């Protein structure tokens, strides 16, 4: 059931949504909740059911089944979408003509366009290894390949190139599959952008205790594919060489914006948007991992590729589109966000929010009460009045329970946010 037809798409076409991830789905829901009853077209390079990229590592690691990767089972997509174009990338956006161009030359006119195409993994600096193709993890197809690779021989040796959150998620999948994992990173410590060096150092020790090999402050200089079998031998800048069954590149992601060549849509790190997710081009919006929005911690506009941001930006965009189509000004701006993340590796939980680097000083607490290790780092400014970032590292005890520190992470995050909002 659609609401009253308050917003009618202009004669130039429907609302077109590029991408079918968290931002897109959230925008679709918001559009309809706001009462927009006009036609909606979705173009995705994936399949007809949207999946959650956050779940891909759980799937690859065998924790969840394929079916569980699709978190919107309750949604009535038929009520949300009139025309769903699947398995189709976008060739270009013609902002002047208000048209989207598909590779087959088809052009779809739009009244409003939402770019929510997400991101793709990048592998800067990893040497070419043809014919061996290193694995990456983002899409369901990536996850299927990784899953297949990890499922094979027991005790496979896997090189995880990258020490970011994604790297740790891949690592978790490897360990879940019984693999022997090595982490490679250029920095002295893992999680360079979110963890305090002392917290990272403790986390590294925990990983090593769990059988993970670390190659930090190192880079791969060459990778030679093995003959006949999968895998390759990687030579590092310290002179070492080591053979791996699989290499997974987990060095970060870039927005999927290859199709945005029209200079009317300003792109820097991501698509530049205002607080209602409007781009520089008229009637074009962007949300999720493609958009650079306000990072409250640094005060800069940048891409913070988080699920929750994508959902909230998508909602903001959807509501704004519906409002404009109904002839009203949008009212609920996207307030910005702070970096935040939680990551599990086996019995270890690391969480962080805000930016430690923004603090004038950091307080570190470690406790091992009752066998439960927790390490906490808090960064403050304005004396000790304003919390700007924290890390909590905890190891589960008593059959899987994390300590009280973990129960408080939401309150810490809120404390940081409150100071900015």
């Amino acid at each position, binding site marked *: 059931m659609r609401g009253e037809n308050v917003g009618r798409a202009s004669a130039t076409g429907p609302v077109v949504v590029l991408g079918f991830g*968290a931002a897109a789905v959230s925008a679709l829901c918001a559009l309809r909740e706001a009462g927009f009853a006009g036609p909606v077209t979705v173009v995705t390079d994936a399949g007809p059911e949207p999946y959650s990229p956050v779940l891909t590592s759980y799937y690859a690691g065998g924790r969840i089944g394929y079916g569980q990767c*699709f978190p919107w089972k309750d949604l009535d997509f038929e009520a949300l979408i009139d025309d769903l174009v699947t398995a189709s990338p976008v060739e270009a956006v013609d902002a002047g003509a208000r048209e989207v161009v598909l590779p087959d030359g088809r052009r779809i006119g739009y009244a409003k366009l939402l770019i929510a195409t997400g991101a793709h993994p990048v592998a800067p600096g990893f040497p070419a290894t043809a014919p061996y193709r290193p694995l990456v993890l983002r899409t369901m197809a990536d996850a299927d390949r990784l899953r297949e690779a990890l499922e094979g021989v027991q005790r496979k040796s896997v090189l995880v190139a990258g020490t970011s959150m994604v790297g740790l998620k891949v690592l978790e999948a490897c360990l879940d599959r019984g693999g022997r994992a090595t982490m490679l990173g250029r920095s002295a410590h893992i999680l360079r952008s979110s963890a305090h060096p002392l917290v990272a150092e403790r986390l590294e020790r925990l990983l090593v205790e769990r059988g993970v090999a670390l190659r930090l402050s190192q880079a791969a200089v060459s990778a030679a594919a093995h003959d006949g079998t999968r895998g390759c031998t990687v030579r590092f800048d310290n002179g070492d060489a080591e053979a791996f069954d699989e290499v997974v590149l987990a060095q970060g992601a870039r927005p999927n914006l290859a199709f945005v060549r029209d200079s009317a849509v300003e792109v820097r790190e991501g698509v530049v948007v205002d607080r209602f997710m409007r781009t520089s081009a008229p009637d074009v919006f962007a949300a999720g991992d493609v958009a650079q929005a306000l990072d409250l911690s640094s005060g800069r506009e940048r891409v913070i590729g988080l699920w*929750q941001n994508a959902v909230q930006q998508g909602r903001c965009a959807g509501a704004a589109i519906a409002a404009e189509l109904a002839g009203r000004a949008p009212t609920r701006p996207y307030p910005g966000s702070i970096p935040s993340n939680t990551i599990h590796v086996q019995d270890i939980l690391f969480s962080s929010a805000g930016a430690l680097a923004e603090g004038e000083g950091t307080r570190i607490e470690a406790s091992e009460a009752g066998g439960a290790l927790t390490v906490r780092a808090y960064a403050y400014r304005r004396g000790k009045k304003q919390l700007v970032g924290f890390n909590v590292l905890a190891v589960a005890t008593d059959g899987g329970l994390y300590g009280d520190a973990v129960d408080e992470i939401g309150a810490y995050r809120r404390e940081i946010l409150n100071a900015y909002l």
Partner: protein
Amino acid sequence: MIRKSLCFDAKKCVGCYACAVACMDQNDIDVVGDGVAYRFVAHVEGEDGGDVRIAHVSMACMHCEAAECLDACPAGALHRDEASGAVVVRRELCIGCHACAMACPFGIPRFGRDGTMQKCDACYARTRFGYGPACAEICPTGALTFEEVNDAADAKLKRFGRSLV
């Protein structure tokens, strides 16, 4: 539709824990096994003009109107029950990622030994059929009630919520 909601009056709460245990009973919470309590009672001591004062808070999921946990869950394990307005977790879908814990300012999401999140569902499976939430039904002092939410009660609850954040 008139919606009823759990309301808490801190002035009337004496920290007796009846709500906490009634919740365990209603939800068959195995506190020594896989379960975690959904409702907590805290005692807050302070001073008022030199006199020591004590206040008590009975807390569980607030079922926020703009529930950040709903936005944060990447697994579709949280949804809002439309009839009651309750935010409900489906543990079978939870991957234990703690994103909800990071999103919730009240520290409500808790994780048992199986790693999945557990929390109050406002007894939506009772309220749908005209029964009250176990915690409100048992409260001996009238601190926890299940009432039609009017603007005044709503504002009071929001003030209380903000004071906690």
